């Protein structure tokens, strides 16, 4: 290795890095924003190329029909979940004569430009990076939904023109949920080993059955109630435990997502 004064190189590089960290990320707002704006079209193109490699042509053809059916099923289930939630809402309105103003959400369409976090070979974080950010009104905590209106995750961090969202398979993505039509919060849903979704902290007194439709309960700020998450596939109930758990089969296929909608309150 032809090294001229390697110690000086390390000292200068170390100094620059320390200086950059001291100055802080906020000072790089304009430069970072400009770089991201320039790189985003390339990023979108590169990401699509990666996605194309991930799904072979043969698979895509044979899976086309299945995806269409799944999509239709998810749309109907979302509609059903919404109806059940509306029914519950009507009942509550009749019972308590309380008027609740309908929540008005506006949608912000966003394209997924990256999956995962650089440096996370372990895949501890199941996240996606979206090509829209705080300049478009996106804020932390807002839900992201698929084209059928199925809840797939929520925004965890934003920069001026990009945002990071955790997917429901992620162990760090936690959303208060309930059984459609019930209204009260059932428990907290989170990803389980990146493979399924688990609802924790369900009191033993609550009744949960297989194939129950699970929706967001709206307990958190920015999260509207009634967004379909999936169906209960298994209930784990131990007699000596304080809480029971339920495994949820998500209604949306997050692997094939390319565009999502962010629900802005």
């Amino acid at each position, binding site marked *: 290795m032809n090294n001229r004064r390697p110690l000086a190189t390390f000292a200068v590089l170390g100094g620059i890095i320390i200086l*950059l*960290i001291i100055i802080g990320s906020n000072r790089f707002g304009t430069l970072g924003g400009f770089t*991201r704006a320039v*790189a985003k079209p390339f*990023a979108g193109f*590169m*990401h699509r190329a990666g996605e194309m490699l991930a799904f072979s042509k043969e698979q895509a053809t044979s899976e086309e029909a299945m995806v269409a059916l799944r999509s239709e099923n998810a749309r109907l289930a979302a509609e059903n979940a919404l109806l059940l939630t509306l029914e519950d809402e009507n009942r509550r309105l009749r019972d308590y004569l309380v008027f609740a103003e309908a929540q008005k959400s506006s949608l912000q369409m966003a394209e997924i430009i990256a999956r995962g976090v650089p*440096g996370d*070979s372990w895949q501890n974080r199941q996240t996606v990076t979206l090509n829209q950010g705080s300049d478009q009104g996106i804020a932390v905590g807002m839900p992201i939904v698929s084209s059928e209106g199925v809840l797939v995750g929520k925004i965890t961090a934003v920069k001026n023109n990009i945002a990071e969202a955790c997917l429901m398979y992620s162990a760090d993505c936690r959303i208060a949920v309930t059984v459609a039509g019930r209204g009260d919060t059932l428990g907290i849903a989170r990803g389980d080993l990146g493979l399924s979704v688990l609802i924790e902290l369900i009191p033993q007194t609550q009744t949960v059955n297989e194939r129950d439709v699970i929706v967001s309960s709206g307990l958190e700020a920015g999260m509207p109630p009634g967004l379909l998450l999936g169906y209960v596939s298994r209930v784990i109930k131990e007699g000596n435990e304080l809480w029971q758990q339920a495994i949820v089969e998500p209604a949306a296929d997050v692997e094939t997502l390319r565009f999502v909608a962010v629900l802005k309150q």
Partner: protein
Amino acid sequence: MSLMSRTWFINLIAIILAALADIVFVGSLPLSLHSLHLVVLGIVFAALLANIRAAAWWALLGGLMFEIFSFRFFGSHLIILFLVLGLVYFLFERVMTNRSVYSLLMIAIGATILYDGLFLLFDYWSGVRLLPPSSLFKALGLSLVVNAVAAIFIFYISNLATRRLRPVFLPFTRR
């Protein structure tokens, strides 16, 4: 454009493209190819084919690109790539005696272990819920294999363009 400024410009474009590909392209690849670390391999090859100063540019500019797109705390990528650069330099200068494919393999594996290990520590400290140890070891193993294979592949490609590398460890001698 002079030869030096042309080389500098090509390097700059290569660093930016490799970092961008690492962020947006590699993450969506199938199998375990998502654990390919293009910037880390760039540092290893810059140190191998050029000098430590070229490798330092890879660490600095590659790290800056990561910081611009990443949502980790500012500086984490720069610090980790700086440490990887330090390890690569140490292994090249103090441990390895030549530029064979075996030396490269050892350095690529060492750099991958340090890079993956430090990010795992960062995630642990920042409260990210980690996968079970068995899954973590499996992920590390696959990451090592993917990056080692990529390093060998780039080595032989580079070998066509430069004579600085030696594809064998021990020269064949006829008795």
